[in-house]
């Protein structure tokens, strides 16, 4: 009987240890971002037709992207009820498993509760095809899927801030 009690206590301890290591949401960390290709990108955007779509382009190596991501999460919550859809498009190197792991964990940490995508393409090819010089970049599409704002850091004298994202959204509401 004593042996049985010890076995029960041991099992309880093991269960408790396991519970501590499972992420709070119960979701596997690697499932945060849906993998897409450049040819998928227009159809991804089409899924959100009828809504104002705000796409945040980022990567784990982009410190400015990381620093401003929480503000995007905050904006997404503020405008959700008004039919504004946020998504993120991660541009980490698809062959860099550590970077993807880090990005997934980051999304979990900041509790970014909108859809996330990862561009599964050669990085230089993505930048060329999406006509990007650098990131962060925020693209804002109207309900008809037309790109209405491209907020970038491409001009040193006109780099965008969080307020510009909000102004862009408000101008389309």
């Amino acid at each position, binding site marked *: 009987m004593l042996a049985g009690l010890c076995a029960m206590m041991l099992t309880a301890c093991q269960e408790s240890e396991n519970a501590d290591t499972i992420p709070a949401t119960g979701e596997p960390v690697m499932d945060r971002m849906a993998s897409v290709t450049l040819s998928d990108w227009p159809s991804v955007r089409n899924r959100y037709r009828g809504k104002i779509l705000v796409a945040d382009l980022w990567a*784990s*190596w*982009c*410190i*400015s992207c990381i620093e401003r991501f929480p503000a995007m999460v905050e904006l997404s919550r503020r405008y959700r009820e008004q039919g504004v859809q946020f998504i993120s498009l991660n541009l980490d*190197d698809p*062959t*860099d498993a*550590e*970077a993807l792991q*880090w990005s997934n964990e980051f999304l979990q940490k900041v509790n970014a509760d909108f859809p996330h995508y990862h561009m599964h393409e*050669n*990085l*230089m090819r993505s*930048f*060329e095809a999406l006509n990007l*010089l*650098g*990131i*962060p970049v925020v693209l804002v599409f109207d309900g008809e899927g037309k790109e209405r704002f491209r907020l970038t*850091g*491409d*001009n*040193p*004298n006109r*780099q965008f*801030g969080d307020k510009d994202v909000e102004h862009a959204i408000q101008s389309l509401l």
Partner: protein
Amino acid sequence: MWPKFFALITIACLSSSYGYAGKYNSILSIGDPMPTFERLPSVSGETLSSSDLTSEVVVLVSLANHCPWVRGMDPQLVSLANQFKDRDVTIVGFGVNHREDDRLSAMKKHAQEQGYNFPYVYDESQELGRKLGATRTPEYFVFNREGKLVYMGLITNSPAKVTFGGSIKHINGKPTEFYVSDAIEATLAGKPVAVAETRAHGCSVKYEN
């Protein structure tokens, strides 16, 4: 009809002023003069002005200590400076960001750690960066003896970054095209640069408002 025509022309002119000067640069075009700068502090404790740069070829490169792409391509930059150390070529690195880990004291440490063998100056006013339209790190600008821009963009066709594990990873494997080196050689030989503009790849420079 004419008023309408002139209105359209005016709109076209305004629109083009919001476009790009170079293919991938909103401020500078190939052939533009090197921006002047005065007494920028360097990691060696001296100052550097554009008037000090009298070499046949001058290379300016935007850098940022924190940036994994800068650290990934530092070995290529140091090799480049070694390659041309006995030629009439001056390479100058400049930092622009105001982040604590990109400022002058951090630049000194970084230059030492990475074995920088060229002047590394701090453009705290961000004036040089703005005049160059430098928006990424690293981004290269090559000027000829007349101080005209002959190349801007990447160092090679395979940008590299430091991974979370600390190793260096090239996007496209081993580089096969050496844009800056080729631009310097062509300019020294008095020939036109074959590839004058490429899309620089790296971290974004943060300009203060």
